[in-house]
């Protein structure tokens, strides 16, 4: 049975290594600052006890005041999983760091988030729209699209 790690416990571990990077944490998930995202993600992947080598998915949610990018990680060896998020407060051309260097599976998913939500990921080798055609105006999955 896959154990969902407690967000608070993982947050405590992350705080030790990278003080100040955790914004808030709850049982189910934790929120990390955008600037320390790459460092924390690398820590989560490379630490042997956590060992999150498998990225389930990346997605983005539009909460009007900010975007929240949700990551779900799983460790195949230890059979535990966790969810972490990061927030982006800019609405005009938001930019976040890309985790493609750590988990290659983020490739198409980050392009999808850019296509539908407008969040650019720097460090991504091929930041182009994926479903909609080049030249499409707007980002359809945002809450204020055509409403």
């Amino acid at each position, binding site marked *: *049975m*896959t154990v969902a790690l407690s967000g608070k416990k993982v947050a405590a571990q992350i705080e030790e290594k990278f003080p100040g990077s955790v914004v808030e944490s709850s049982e*189910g*998930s934790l929120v990390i600052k955008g600037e320390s995202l790459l460092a924390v993600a690398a820590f989560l992947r490379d630490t042997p006890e956590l060992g999150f*080598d*498998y*990225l*389930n*998915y990346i*997605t983005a*949610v*539009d909460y009007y005041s900010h975007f929240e990018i*949700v990551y*779900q990680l799983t460790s*195949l060896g230890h*059979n535990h999983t966790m*969810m972490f998020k990061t927030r982006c407060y800019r609405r005009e051309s938001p930019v976040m760091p890309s985790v493609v260097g750590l*988990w*290659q*599976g*983020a*490739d*198409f*998913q980050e392009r*999808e988030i850019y296509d*539908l939500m407008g969040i650019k990921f720097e460090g991504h080798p091929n930041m182009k*729209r*994926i*479903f*909609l*055609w080049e030249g499409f105006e707007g980002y*359809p*999955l945002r809450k204020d699209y055509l409403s």
Partner: protein
Amino acid sequence: MTTTEMALKTEPFVLNIGPVHPSTHGVYRMRVTLDGEVVLDMEPVFGYLHRGVEKLAEERSYTGFIPLTDRLDYIASMSNNLAYCLAVERLAGVKVPERAEYIRVIMAELQRLANHCIVVGAFFNDCGAYFTPFMYLFREREKILDLFDMVCGQRLTYNYMRIGGLSQDIPDEFLPALKKFLPQMKRFVDEYECFIKQNEILLARAKGVGILSRETAINCGISGPVARASGIKWDLRKADPYSIYDRFEFDIPFGEAGDCYDRYRVRMEEIKQSLRILEQAARQIPPGPVKTEVPHLIRPPAGEAYAHIESPKGELGFYLVSDNSIAPYRCHVRPPSLINLTALREMVRGWKVADLIIIFGSIDITMGEVDR
């Protein structure tokens, strides 16, 4: 041998294996850079079937979204229904009656059989066995579709599961028909393996072709038969059992080499294991209600939930965010087909055009899921 050592000067050219093609399993387009017959690079182009399903989810009620989930992976609709209903039930804290759980498992496993029938048949079609294995598998798939027709009146997009259970109970003639079908399928699969498992030409075409290493597979987030063929012993039915899968005895087949031949073998073995599960479920199914009473316009409490299942293509998951209204605030589908395609470029470089088609066919994608 490397292409740079060739004595003749050749120029690479770009071939567009377009959205309309007899073998791209839907409207998938790739722009392939070829040097003669050797593939140097491949760039996938998606979006021909993008219907904005995730945006549509925000306009429809939770129950009204179920028919849309059918059309995501249209070849394996029951699995989509199941994943979505599990996500909403986790969000809303709804418990599903026993009988409904058993029937859901039966439907999901029958759907796995039907899906693998198409995939293995299409794989052989790509190999060039001119429709013969395809037709034999379709003959069996017809029987499965007849069973589904008996239950919900539909052959392809079922809309059968509901939040809290199923839309209706199975008719009386379903279980006898299922029990008659299972030994037929078992015999057929054994006969089928005799025909084609050791075929020289198939071994030459598929063994060692399109190898996906274990590390790349884990890094890319590959799931399903593709991952298991590369040696990753990860099946959500055993690793993170959902519904009542922990009550059944079955094995997880996996391969070692990660080539096209292993993926085909893993799928054939999965068919046999699904038959085992079906036998056990058909024996153990209890009587009772099939749906918990939930309001039609259900309003789950504010929060988020992620539920995933082992669909025939891989890990299919739904991430739902609710704000206590009748429609989801955000619904994200974790598409196994799209994520499995991440590794395609690496798998294909250096092989020939003929292998490109076979490797692509062995990953088993459905564009409805890739594009949503």
